[in-house]
């Protein structure tokens, strides 16, 4: 079972894609998705204090537990307008 990870801004540029699948297991949290991304791309680790998380289009805290099939977005500081 999987979740879908969405990437934007600097994350999208570093990973070279706007979405990728990640294996899901019970207990997986939003912050674990960030850790998983940083294992392959440690240069993204300094974003942690600035990062927010969204699940299925709603902001969630980093400790939020994920369900199989969730769409999880890593949300760096926004700058619309």
């Amino acid at each position, binding site marked *: 079972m999987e979740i879908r990870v969405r990437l934007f801004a600097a994350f999208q540029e570093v990973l070279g894609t706007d979405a990728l699948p990640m294996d899901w297991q019970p207990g997986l949290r939003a912050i674990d998705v960030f850790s998983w991304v940083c294992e392959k791309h440690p240069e993204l680790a300094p974003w942690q204090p600035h990062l927010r998380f969204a699940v299925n289009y709603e902001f969630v805290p980093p400790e939020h537990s994920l369900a199989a099939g969730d769409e999880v977005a890593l949300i760096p500081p926004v700058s*619309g307008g």
Partner: protein
Amino acid sequence: MTRESFSWDVQIGDRPLDVGVVYHRAEAPANGAVVLMSGMVRQETQGRAVQCLDYQAYQPMAEQQLRYLIERCQQQVPEIQRAVIHHRLGRLFVGELSVLVAVGSPHRAAAFEACRFLIDRLKLEVPIWKKEIWGDGTARWAGVDVAFQS
């Protein structure tokens, strides 16, 4: 005469923004004022010449968050009749419109308050990003001043 109810319009897309369209959608017979705020690409940021801005959005979430913002705005300023937010994505050059916010209300004070609320919260809460591309060809994602950005 029927009493009209509140309505809103949210759009995020690549097409150029149209002040006339946004203004028109904020019109209502109960209005006494429409406040329209336009945002455009400025020629410099933090003292550096800007060549262009690249906007991207997490589109379904951004549209949902804008709808939530409008709901909160209407609870805070219940007098308003219309709320319209159009945001453009893609590469925009100096002077091009990036965002339009219009609010129609029976009285101007509520329209000003609501319009300011919507644009201020949009900048803080809605998943839209801009990359600043400077005149010397270097670039940076806006919104956070951090040394680790290349």
